[in-house]
């Protein structure tokens, strides 16, 4: 019998906030209450001054394996996830080979189990090879445990194919997740289209390229009765479209990344490739609209779009360097630092990092659960007020492409518990 006691913390879960210790026995929560006694041989995690919450769930992680193991592996990405307080991540399908068949999906799942640091849930691509031409076998993949389908990295351009995807998926209890970008409008684009790109001489990435596809997929969901999740929304216009779709009662959910609630296109002034990301960093007005969307629930979840890239690929000119930045280890610190001013409480932020994404990913039987006896012990313990800065050398991710060096962050993960076993103790991964 393995026992774990988490003492001195404030428990936050869908039921609210209260002072409580948590006792875990054999992977499940056994007792929640004040002043629980530590028994002999029981492992104790100090949560004084900390929040004890259900583990975080990332809807949007690029683990790069198989295919780009020089940038990240499922093991290093899982370790980064654990350090960031995540007990579950959805692995994006733009691997090589693509996660478009059971064998690849099963490989990713098993590598996640082997790493043992995080519950890795592979997504599947909507189209074979993410080429936008033929649908993947949704039912077969769903039977293998895939819940989220997306061609992330690019959007499904063909409106007919997307309509068919919605129609075919209706009875399968899966979620189609769209990377909203009309590719024809962003050919060669490097940064947000606006005043900054005009003066920096960089090809612009117009907001309308995102909003047209947000609009299209909302209308396809309306037409087909389908269910759509909109990935990494970045523009004020997108937030407003989703707000209206939700008011119309459509089955639409959405996510936003930590970087789209904290960074703007002005940062490209020094031409650093660390700030190149898809969708691009937008204006302060967009940042504020996305924050407001999270605050009023229009946007359901914070998702990292953790996108590791090896240093040499980011040491190319801006137009050649791949888009993307790390996210897992800074997600909490960026979110708390960015959202307090938008009127979100710590509970609201935890909801957007934990039980709301857990429901979208269909992992809410294991993650984002209430902290109560009998529940699985997937937990995150973090200090919600600690100010800190990123030191790239200490990142668990195999890549170091974080834009947050020198930027003050608020809130640091201390311990992470996966199925009753600590994966991180005192900010240090256990394996």
């Amino acid at each position, binding site marked *: 019998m393995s026992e774990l006691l988490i003492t001195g913390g404030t428990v936050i879960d869908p039921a609210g906030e209260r002072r409580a210790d948590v006792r875990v026995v054999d992977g499940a929560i056994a007792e929640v209450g004040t002043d629980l006694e530590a028994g002999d041989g029981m492992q104790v995690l100090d949560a004084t001054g900390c929040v004890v919450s259900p583990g975080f769930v990332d809807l949007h992680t690029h683990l790069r394996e198989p295919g780009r193991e020089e940038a990240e592996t499922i093991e290093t990405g899982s370790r980064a996830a654990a350090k960031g307080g995540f007990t579950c991540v959805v692995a994006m399908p733009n691997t090589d080979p693509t996660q478009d068949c059971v064998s690849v999906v099963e490989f990713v799942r098993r590598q996640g189990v082997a790493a043992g640091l995080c519950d890795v849930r592979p997504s599947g691509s909507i189209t074979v090879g993410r080429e936008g031409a033929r649908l993947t076998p949704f039912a077969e993949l769903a039977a293998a445990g895939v819940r989220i389908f997306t061609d992330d990295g690019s959007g499904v351009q063909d409106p007919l194919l997307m309509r068919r995807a919605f129609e075919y998926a209706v009875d399968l209890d899966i979620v189609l997740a769209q990377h909203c970008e009309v590719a024809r409008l962003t050919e060669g684009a*490097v940064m947000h*289209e*606006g*005043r900054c*790109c*005009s*003066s*920096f*001489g*960089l*090809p*612009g990435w*117009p907001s309308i390229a995102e909003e047209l596809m947000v609009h299209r997929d909302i209308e396809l969901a309306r037409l087909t009765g389908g269910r759509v999740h909109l990935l990494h929304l970045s523009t004020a216009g997108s937030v407003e479209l989703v707000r209206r779709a939700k008011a119309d009662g459509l089955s639409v959910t959405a996510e936003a990344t930590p970087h789209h609630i904290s960074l703007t296109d002005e940062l490209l002034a*020094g*031409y*650093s*490739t660390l700030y190149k990301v898809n969708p691009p960093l937008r204006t302060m007005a967009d940042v504020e609209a996305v924050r407001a969307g999270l605050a009023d629930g229009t946007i359901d979840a914070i998702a990292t779009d953790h996108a590791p890239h090896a240093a*040499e*690929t980011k*040491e*190319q*000119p*801006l*137009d*050649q360097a791949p888009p993307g930045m790390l996210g897992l280890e800074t997600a909490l610190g960026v979110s708390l630092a960015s959202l307090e001013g938008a009127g979100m409480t710590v509970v609201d932020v935890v909801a957007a990092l934990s039980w709301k994404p857990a429901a979208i990913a269909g992992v809410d039987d294991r993650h984002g659960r209430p902290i109560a006896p009998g529940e699985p012990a997937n937990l995150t313990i973090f200090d919600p007020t600690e100010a800190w800065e990123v030191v790239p050398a200490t990142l668990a991710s195999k890549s170091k492409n974080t834009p947050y060096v020198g930027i003050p962050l608020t809130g640091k993960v201390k311990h992470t518990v996966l199925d009753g076993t600590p994966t991180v103790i005192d900010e240090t991964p256990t394996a």
Partner: protein
Amino acid sequence: MRHFRSIGEAGPEAVRRLLDLADHMAEVNRRPNPKVPALRGRTVCNVFFEDSTRTRLSFETAAKRLSADTMNFAVSSSSVNKGESLRDTIETIAAMGVDAFVIRHKSSGAPWQIGQWTNAAVVNAGDGWHAHPTQALLDCFTIRNAFGRPDGFDGLKIAIIGDIKHSRVARSDIEAFAMLGADVTLVAPKTLLPPVTDGMPVTITTDLDAVIGEVDVVYLLRMQMERMTEALVPNLYEYTTRFGLTPERVTKLAEHTLIMHPGPMNRGVEVAVDPSELPGSVITQQVTNGIAVRMAVLFDLLGSGANLEDES
């Protein structure tokens, strides 16, 4: 000045200093032996990741007239080894001992990235759509000499015509002309303008005929043929009709108006007349002046304590 990468980064004081210095360099260039030992022992490396004729030759000539050693490194965009990062390329060349890199790159911002990886001075010889600051300097130098305006361009009216959006020359010229006090008008359809022009120190019109008789300088930009596939203008004939310097428009020019072009020119497109028949054309002077301003830039960056006396 540590680098010379954009007009804005250099600032008005440096721009004026460089223009004054270019006067001295022009004097050197008029000597029977146009060569001074000012940069003897210094090494200037021209790193051109994009094709160029006049800018590369102009920089090389400028460096040689100051007695610097020059190295040339040309990479056609098609032969760039995708395995070698820009950083590795620069660090390799820097290891050979280089005092200044003259960089031409098709990607905007490359000189800023390169500046992080070398202690040498970085001179921007054109980056993507972004900046071509020595072109702007030579344009200012040409205008100031033609009009005898060493103190600035207050009240001078300059029209820049054509593809502003994709033009590093236009971005740098707008900055420099406005910095020196000129009133700048852009003449272009919206497809050839930057997506957002609010905040730029310019007036914008599509009516060339309304402004051509009013301006002191007509600055024509190259209409890049390769852009014709992008639906930016319906066809070249329509472009010339609306935005080209046609014989009819030449008759509207004021007598003193200068005609300028950064080259290479598309005859029959933006310039639908023989430029040698235009009394106001200073297009060849621009090329000549390019050497003097580039000498000024290299001397300013590398020539501390040196002098401009003859070698003898």
